[in-house]
């Protein structure tokens, strides 16, 4: 198993794939979170009836396999609209919306968990809606939402393995390419799996730690 035909170039190729995985994840989590906060606050603010169309659209992203979302978006943008857009852009766009759909739910849950009496007290002390949001709701909601958000970010990193379908060579795809050439599936898969594990495991543990710590006090 350790007697491998893997060369330095192959390792660089794998590392590049890992880099793509991390970049796609970072972009998707960043834009997804920004959109998710906007959607989540909007949904909370206007109430279930007026937010119904948005809820419906966001729900679609959570009810259809990501693989199909990517294929559909790619086909729509490149063949229906006829734009010249790279697979990387499509992948980032779809993953961002996918992240936003989940993040909106987390944000809404976080805001709802803030006791309404506390907010009313804040407003009656003369705080504006914006001040109430930033200095009362945000600190409390972040505590509730952060562990789930960490879980979401890690989920997006794992789901980013699917962007191979729009011709983005990320970590798992680069491992697959090497497997086809070297015929050493076990070794390469273990290397690739360990990479995901070594990033995900400590962060997931940290998220669990925060959750426990904050639920105590």
């Amino acid at each position: 198993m350790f007697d491998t035909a893997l060369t330095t170039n192959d390792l660089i190729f794998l590392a590049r794939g890992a880099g793509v995985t991390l970049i796609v994840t970072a972009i998707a989590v960043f834009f997804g979170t920004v959109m998710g906060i906007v959607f989540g606050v909007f949904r909370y603010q206007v109430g279930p009836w007026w937010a119904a169309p948005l809820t419906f659209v966001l729900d679609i992203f959570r009810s259809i396999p990501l693989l199909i979302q990517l294929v559909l978006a790619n086909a729509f943008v490149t063949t229906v609209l006829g734009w010249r857009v790279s697979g990387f852009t499509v992948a980032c766009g779809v993953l961002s919306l996918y992240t936003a759909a989940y993040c909106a739910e987390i944000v809404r849950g976080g805001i709802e968990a803030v006791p309404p009496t506390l907010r009313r007290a804040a407003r009656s002390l003369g705080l504006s809606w914006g001040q109430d949001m930033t200095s009362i709701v945000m600190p409390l909601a972040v505590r509730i939402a952060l562990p789930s958000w960490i879980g979401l970010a890690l989920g997006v990193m794992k789901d980013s393995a699917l962007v191979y379908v729009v011709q983005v060579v990320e970590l798992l795809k680069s491992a697959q390419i090497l497997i086809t050439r070297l015929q050493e599936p076990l070794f390469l898969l273990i290397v690739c799996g360990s990479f995901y594990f070594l990033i995900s495991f400590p962060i997931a543990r940290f998220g669990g730690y925060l959750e426990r710590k904050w639920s105590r006090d």
Partner: protein
Amino acid sequence: MFNYNFRWAQAMASLPRMLEGALVTLEVALLSMVIGISIAIVLTLFRLSGSRILSAVAATWVEIARNTPALFQIYMVHFGLGGFGIHLSPYLSLLIGIAFNNAGYLSENFRGALKGIPETQTRSARSLGMTPIAAFRYVVMPQMLRISFLPMTNQMVWAILMTSLGTVVAMNTDLYGVTSDLNARTFRTFELFAIAAMIFYLITKTVTLSARLLAARLFRY
């Protein structure tokens, strides 16, 4: 509006084949849930057993299932086991991969649910003369399954969505596989995958809705 000729009729003609695929998808998802729940219960028992080795086995399973992509897990079952000379059919690889993933996530849900069941219940059951297994089977487990009913529904939806990953192990009888096969023949990518997306949406909605109805009926009191 678009510089593209939609050919919905042509794509719709493949609907019967895609619906057959949808049945396979549901079958894989259901089986993977049944296997996943059974293994998750066993893993939970391992954790409760107090044995260090068994707890370590359960913890390793859960952490690997939760911290690596599902795609990787299915890949590992198909090509990784292939390295040991065990060659499974795409169907089995997909089923085992998803079941592995389900078991990991569900076991974590069960552990959370157990926190809500007071330890005193087990002790009273034991003092009534029940064996540890009977106490778990008749007192703790029903409550555990009830508390984690909602997470289990979510996991079922996940399992349905995960069946699409079978494509990496050349699975071509499930909904995604059938669709991409048809796509390779006709190149009506957008129309075909839009229909597949619709079917997936309907399936997941039906599952969540019926689970909600079932929960209302089962947990009335």
